[in-house]
């Protein structure tokens, strides 16, 4: 990376553990900003709107049960707001998602690193598992609710031609 991402807020030093936020509640504005961030992850690949309820459930599970991510989500919203102020929209998102220059396994010691580790990275995992993987050729993925075995359509890409040959030979 040639440039440090974000400004004063984003680069404030913090400890690596979860930012405190228990007993707080996310505001409608924060939820809106988080949803926008989530949609940006899918923007070039698929439509995240199709999984809005699953994303809401994820955020609910992460904020209503200990250890709560509420502090992390609030922080991520503030980081995103600073990036948008500094770089504009959507350039701020582009830098956060594609040009962040942060090592995936580094300990998060700044606010922007927290935003990346605890929010963006986890959102990416949710987005890919629930919807994004479909834009590569798969029919199923770890975390995707594929559906019942008893349906006519197989729940994964199957070795169909070979099965047909085997059946024909059997007859």
């Amino acid at each position: 990376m040639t440039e440090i991402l974000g400004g004063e807020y984003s680069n404030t030093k913090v400890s690596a553990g979860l930012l405190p936020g228990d007993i707080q509640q996310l505001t409608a504005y924060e939820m809106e900003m988080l949803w926008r961030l989530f949609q940006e992850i899918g923007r070039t690949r698929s439509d995240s709107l199709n999984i809005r309820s699953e994303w809401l459930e994820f955020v609910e599970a992460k904020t209503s049960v200990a250890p709560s991510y509420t502090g992390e989500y609030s922080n991520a919203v503030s980081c995103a707001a600073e990036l948008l102020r500094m770089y504009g929209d959507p350039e701020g998102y582009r830098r956060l998602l594609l040009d962040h220059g942060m090592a995936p396994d580094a300990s998060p010691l700044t606010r922007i690193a927290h935003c990346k580790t605890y929010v963006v990275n986890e959102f990416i995992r949710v987005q890919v598992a629930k919807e994004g993987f479909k834009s590569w050729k798969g029919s199923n993925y770890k975390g995707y609710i594929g559906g019942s075995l008893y349906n006519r359509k197989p729940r994964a890409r199957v070795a169909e031609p070979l099965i047909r040959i085997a059946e024909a030979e059997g007859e």
Partner: protein
Amino acid sequence: MYAAIPELLSYEPASRCTLEWLKKALQSAITLEFATLPPYLTALWSIKDEMHPAAVSIREAVQEEMQHMAFACNMLTAIGGTPQIAGRVPQYPAKGLPGDVMPDLVVDIDGLSQASLKTFLAIEQPEIDIITGAKPASAEPGKFATIGEFYDAIAEAFKETNPPLSLKGQVIGPRTGWAIDSMHAVLRAIDTIKEQGEGSSGTPVDYDPADWCHYYRFAEVAEGRKIVQLPGEPKRWAYGSEKLPFPEVWPVAKLPKGGYDRDRVTGAVLHLMDRFDATFTRMVDDIQATWTGGDQAALWRAIQEMFDLQEIGLALMKTPRCDGKGNYVPRWRYLGAEL
């Protein structure tokens, strides 16, 4: 299936284009879609081989009915209504469907049989049966003869009123279709419901050429033959030579009016029936919670409970009745406050 919904029809066609009418119409659609599930599921479960082509076909029809209900719930939510499911479960056997639809049709809880298929065909009847040419008795003026006409009226009302569409409370994820966030999304959902229910413009298939709409799925099972397209005639279809053998079913007897006499069933059967109804009630409540709070987790719980219902229901359907008339079927009772 929506041949007569008196409350809705008290509106003159011209005055149907109001938000108030639209909300009532969508609620009726939800109640009706839900009411078909117990008879369809009981028939499906009665098929011994769950991979039998008839079972696979009916299972898909049931799943699509569930999705249609989800579409209707999301459409109602989008325009500011709250879908009501919990208080609107009929008692079976039902005379007519909810909303006084088809008041003379008796909807039984029964296994798959020619009699139950006849009921299902009546429920799903299209404008014209493209194979036999049969038409439903023509509707009285101002009434809907088919599901398609009913949804056409809903689409018209959407277009006329052009209401703002809110995402809040909609359940948008697997098994519930897409977000109702634009007129395009509304019309696409309505189109899907129509195509999957009765087929599109003179063919028994919906969008997918291998996917039969519900009426013809039931018709094939009843006829015992697969439907084929006549060679060189893209608009003509007929029952072909490929047989669809009627599946082997558990010998259940239809649910007696008023249910079973608690004193005349064994403790084990009573236990299964009570467990079934308690699970059914939880499932209904979870589906209600899904749309009351836009709660995806409640929908996952409801899906688990549907599978539990099958396990318990099948145990009943494999148990002969004491009176020798056949095997038991579940009662599908919503216990509400009793639980």
